[in-house]
Every structure is written in structure tokens, then in C-alpha cells.
């Protein structure tokens, strides 16, 4: 149990650290809109003197920002759902085994 408690403490500290980074980034970034870095790459290529014409376009693109954020949330929700389901399973299994060995 001692090991588990120290790991828990470590995870709380890590969580705090984790939250600090984007907050500091938002503060340092000033009044930027925080556009995607890959979009900036596209801008850079488009700005090059010898004009590059993309020869293929996405088969389907979300019609707008709202649909895009819907699909992004869906991706995160799916991932978090599966991940947390499995972690719950692991914890439950461990608790059941401990209970069984205590009897």
C-alpha cells in the first residue's frame, strides 16, 4: 500500500505540472490565436517563390468549425472511454483478488 500511496502522490504532482505548461503557454503566447503549427507550414510553402500547387485534396472535410470540433471531441471521448474502462477493470480485478486472498 505504501508504494501505491507514493505513486498517487507523484501523480498528483505530475498533474499539477501538466496543467501549468499550457497555462504558461497561453500567457506567454500573448494575443495570438494559437493556430495549428501544420497550418503555418502550409502558409510557408504557399509563400515560397516557386508556387506549389497541391495535387490532391482531402476526400472529405468537415463542413465547418462546429462539425470539426464535434469529431475531435468524439475522438477524445472514444479514447478516454476505452482507456478509463480498462483502468477501471484493472483496479476492480486487483481489488477482487486482494479480497479473495484476505479471506
Amino acid at each position, binding site marked *: 500500500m505504501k508504494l501505491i500511496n507514493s505513486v498517487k502522490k507523484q501523480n498528483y504532482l505530475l498533474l499539477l505540472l501538466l496543467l501549468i505548461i499550457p497555462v504558461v503557454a497561453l500567457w*506567454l503566447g500573448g494575443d495570438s490565436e494559437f493556430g495549428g503549427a501544420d497550418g503555418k507550414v502550409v502558409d510557408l510553402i504557399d509563400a515560397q517563390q516557386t508556387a506549389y500547387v497541391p495535387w490532391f*485534396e*482531402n476526400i*472529405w472535410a468537415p463542413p465547418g468549425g462546429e462539425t470539426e470540433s464535434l469529431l475531435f471531441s468524439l475522438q477524445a471521448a472514444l479514447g478516454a472511454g476505452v482507456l478509463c474502462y480498462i483502468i477501471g477493470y484493472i483496479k476492480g480485478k486487483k481489488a477482487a483478488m486482494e479480497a479473495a486472498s484476505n479471506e
Partner: protein
Amino acid sequence: MHIMEGYLPVQWSIIWSVAFLPFFIWGLKGVQQLITQTPEKRMVLAMVIAFAFVLTSLKLPSVTGSSSHATGMGFGTALVGPASMGIVGTIVLLFQVFLLAHGGLTTLGANAFAMALIGPMVTWLVYQGLKRSGVSFRWSLFSAAVLGNLATYMVTSVQLALAHPDAVSGVGGAFSKFIGIFGITQIPVAIVEGILTVMVMNVLVSNGFVHIDQLFSKKGLVGFKAKEVSHEVN
């Protein structure tokens, strides 16, 4: 990190796809081995894909005033090994191509080469190197995940520079421009990825799901049996 659809000339799109193909087949074998073994290993694979889904959906603001996202490849490499990550990475990339129009089919080979091959490879090598030289488990894992993430963006910049060399300063000049966009932006994002990787791995290890010694095997969880591990904890 995705190179947008159509933004690699035809020849580069073919070159990177062909370069990634053998590793894709290697990955298929790795995944096949995982899913034909114990149900626990299938669960591990599901968890690895889920982690990558979450991390690639988080577009984090960075100090430079632009956003970028983590890859989640380091966590997966620890659990299923570098080979299977080729498939995991490709699944995530395809999801983003078809549903979000991020990245593309013509750039899939290049993106997979950077994210699903070089990232996991670097992660694996860094971990082995640090662990052998006596660095603690958590620092090794953290550094491996961070450097794997940075390596991915390094490769993406090389790929872009090769395809779009600067008219004056050539490939080198173009590389420094692209790495200028990705480089500093990516450092805090990579650190976030490293921290998240250690946090989730902490949960798995402290609950006796995996043992530290089982992580980062070549083929992924060699000799992994969930029941035995649970007994060790008791």
C-alpha cells in the same frame, strides 16, 4: 505534425509510402501475435490505441503562440513494442484523414514514417540506453516519450525540406525554416506527452497490471500474463 493532403509532390509521396511499407507489414505481424495470444494482450492493444486517440486529439497551445498535438506513441511503444506501433499509428492517422481532413492519403506514408516508425523507434532506443546506464524507470520513460515526440517532428521537417527546398538556401535552409515552426512549439507539447505517459504508466504499474521489467520488449509484452503479475503483488 501532419503534412497536409497534397503537400508532398508525387515522387516523395511514393518514396515515403514505399519506405514505410515493410514496417507496416512488420507491424501487422506484431499485432497478429498480440491478438492471437491472451485476451489481456488484446486489451493492452485497445488501451494503446485509445491513449493515442486521446493524445492526438488534444491540440495544446504552446509558448510560440501556435498549437500542436502530442502523439501518444511513447506509451504504446512501452507496452506493445515498436513493431505494432506502425499499425496503431496508421489507424490514428487514417481516422484523422477521413473524419477530420487532417493529414492526407497522399501524405500518409510520410506521416506514418515519422509518427508510427521513427517516433516509436527513438522512444525504444532512448529507453534502452537510459535504463542500461542506470537512469530510473520513470525518468527513462519520460525522456523516451519526450524525445520520441520530438524525433517525429524532426523527421516531418526533413520530409518537408526535401520536398520543398528553399530556392536560395536549399534543403538546409528549408529545414531550418520548418523546424523553426515545429521545434520550439513542440518542446512543451512533448513534455506534456512525457508527463501523461508516466502518469498512466504509474497507474498500470502500481495496480500490478504490468511489471516494469516487462515494458519495452521488442515484440511487446513478451511473457506477459496478467494473472501471474497479480499474484506477485499479493
